[in-house]
């Protein structure tokens, strides 16, 4: 079936198998592999994207559900060479190791800080507890979130 989605401000369309998840459609249909496929059952958050501005695990959304809707992915955050402040914070804090969880975390942190620019530590931990990271032990991710929150409060985005 032909699926048409507005992805990162651009209308795109491609054929998809009826059972295809939005994640597979983005990765294989639209060649946007930034959203990652670590568990494909909504446990790890690596595939986090916005569907009509709502944070979702794209592995749990059918591609067909996104038809004629707006999707924002990790690929839409940087403007050319200019990183999004959350991306900058991740690089500076050393919050990236293998990086497989990173796109999902960058999206989830951006979503959190867009809603709440001053989250306390427990709020952050709870908000991000659906994003698994196997490399970092999360400490430098917490550092990145603190730094990104400061940037958010300073009006960086």
């Amino acid at each position, binding site marked *: 079936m032909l699926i048409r989605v507005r992805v990162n401000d651009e209308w795109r369309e491609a054929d998809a*198998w009826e*059972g295809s998840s939005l994640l597979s459609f983005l*990765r*294989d249909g639209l*060649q*946007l*592999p*930034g*959203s*990652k*496929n*670590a*568990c*494909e*059952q909504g*446990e*790890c958050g*690596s595939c986090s994207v916005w569907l009509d501005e709502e944070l979702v695990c794209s592995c749990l959304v059918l591609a067909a559900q996104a038809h004629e809707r707006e999707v924002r*992915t*990790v*690929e839409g*955050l*940087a403007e050319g060479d200019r*990183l999004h402040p959350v*991306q900058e914070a*991740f*690089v*500076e804090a*050393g919050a*990236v*190791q*293998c*990086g*497989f*969880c*990173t*796109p999902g975390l*960058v999206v989830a942190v951006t979503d959190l800080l867009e809603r709440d620019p001053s989250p306390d530590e*427990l709020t*952050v*931990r*709870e908000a*991000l*507890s*659906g*994003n*698994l*990271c*196997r*490399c*970092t*032990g*999360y*400490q*430098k*991710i*917490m550092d990145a979130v603190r730094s990104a929150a400061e940037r958010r409060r300073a009006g960086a985005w």
Partner: protein
Amino acid sequence: MSTRLDQRTRDGVGESVRRVDGIPKVKGTFAYGSDLWHDQMLWGATVRSPHPHARIRAIHLAEAVASAGVHAVLTHEDVPGKKTYGLEFSDQPVLAWDRVLYAGQPVAVVAAETPELARRAAARVRVEYEELDPVLDMERALDPDAPRLHEWGNTLRHLQIEHGDPDAEAEIWVEGYYETAMQDQAALGPEAGLAIPGEDGGVDLIVTTQWLHVDRQQIAPVLNLPQDRVRITLAGVGGAFGSREDLHMQIHACMLAMHTGRPVKMSYGRDESFLAHVHRHPSRVWLRTGATRDGRLVAVRGRIVIDGGAFASSSPAVIGNATTFLAGPYDVPNAFLEGTAVYTNNPPCGAMRGFGAPQVCFAHEANMDRLARELHLDPVELRRRNALEPGSVLPTGQVVRGSAPVREVLERCRDLPMPPEPEPAPMRDPMTLPGGAGNVGHGEGLRRGVGFALGYKNIAYSEGFDDFHQARVSLFAGPDGPVAEIHTAGVECGQGFSTIVTQIAREELGVRDVVLHEADTGVDSAGSTSASRQTFMGGGAVQMASRAVAEEIFARAIARLGPEGQLGLADGEVLADGVPVVELSDLLDEPVVATRTFHHRPTTGLDERGQGDPHVMFAFGAQRAVVEVDQQLGLVRVVQLGSVLDVGRAINPQGVEGQSEGGSAQGLGLAVMEEIRMKDGRIANASFTDYLIPTMLDMPPVVTELVEDPEPDVPYGAKGIGEISTIVSTAAIVAAIRDATGRELNRAPVQPDDIVGLRQPAASRGWPPVPDVPGPRPVPEYHGADLGQSDLKPKG
């Protein structure tokens, strides 16, 4: 060496330089194995055995072949060359024939137009099995009446280490029995790769791995190709932790690509990933520790058995490590230590971060705590009195050389600031209570506990293995100044290898612009990115090659200008006695290229009495865990981990902290949550819904301090740092739970039932029988089994 830097180039050794791959990773443009794409590619899928032990009566392919979009359905009959492979011994069928030895073993592979069509076709391969009696328990494997899984029996390796008087008596003995579970590496990036048939009849493979050349060594004979026609390039690796050491989809994708003439991609889902990589060995340890009344260790007697599962993988090396470390990082004058790795019909186990050391650390540290209790001594003080130091003799007879700041590690860990006392439970946010997010408790019956563990780990491969690393460094003139390029087959799996080597080239060559060639088989082997070895080995190779480049630059400078004095390089200039004399770019009409191979000092195997000089060097680490336990619900919250690590020298302090923190998270997982559960020989929890790894709510702050006591005669004095925190954190956390609850807790992970007393401590059936083996080497070796990585030799 005439390179002495009077002036340093920024972002060199010792600085927390940003990762070279950080920007593509945050942007989502870094290409992992599962992101690979080729317009003409087919998708592969694997048919796996549902049975742990069965005879294959027949394989029916007709329905699968007729399935829509299918281009190939292959079985063992289609293997072009040798039909087996394996990391240490070639005992693992590429595709099963005759018998399957574990549930999940590959039997057939399929290539089709889309992933869905491939999976559908795979489901239509019909295999007739006759189920056989499986060996599912590691001690049963030692029973002479148990089914024999390989022609050489079920014992993969048994070794014993005799030190001093093995029958020595002591004033006081403590004895313990310990079990650890099968743990999964759970790297987030799945096993994946793309095989592209070459015009020369060879194949190009882009794949997630930890060691390109040992992959190639196993792949080429199976494909019946010379080594140089199997060209391997590293795909982005989404974590490894040992799980990428063994082959996964490599051979299958190459076979399908060569058979169909089309590129073939294979990318495992999470459930298949659990079946397709090796795990951390479940272990059973029997340990007696004897001491004087004033707290000096006199003797240790120990036995460890590990379950290697169906195939050898790296189990012989893992049991070698585990047995040599069984007495702990202590000066023990007398010891008798035995280790056995067995084959069973469980999934193969092999490398995982720590490689045999976490299992024995869990045991020797619990015994040290028992001993401290018996002696009414502070547990840290008992460890301090017996800690290894330079010159100590290990049970293998190996003398601890170089840096061994064990007492400093212990003392600094003891002295780390404690976390603040908790607020009274009614005042607290329920999220901060054990079981927080579940909102299950209200803080009744909370008790804090503190636990401590000391451990150590060998750096690089042991027992006579020469895991060399080759690097090629080129220096050439770029449009904006001199550029250094590093070419090695060293694998970046996330731990920071790529960044470290650019720092080293920058330091040595005084060049800001350092780029990395992709890791491929266009240079010689880099050895594995494992065993905490790549900073040391890859760093050493890049340092050597960089220094050779610098020598050539100096020769050119002298030929051109004849400068006098001590020559150095910094900020794109050649210096003489610290004064710039010529721009590097002016000397680079021709690029300078140097290729060097770095070897660590030679080690030896172990003799019949377990004596030798098996390990290159050691890194030590200590952790203090503070936990809070809900005694009614059996739930645990780890409040703080204090981690003091002996690193020699930190090349990138931020990266080292990252290893400390991430390694601790994996140790925490084994302490309180992670366990592959087996049911009738099948993995019962092959998903992230059922196999839980620590989340951000499970992980406490990790306070890391580094002890920098440079290791002599190694590049920059840097030891490896990849494994030590994982080794000690499981032991420290379980010790803290024991402290909080007073329970024995001799099994990791600790479950709520253990804490509330619904499950009894793991019970031993007594020290198991000693298998009859021809000698201390792996048993398949005595039977002439083909070797895997052991015969890799540097070229030229």
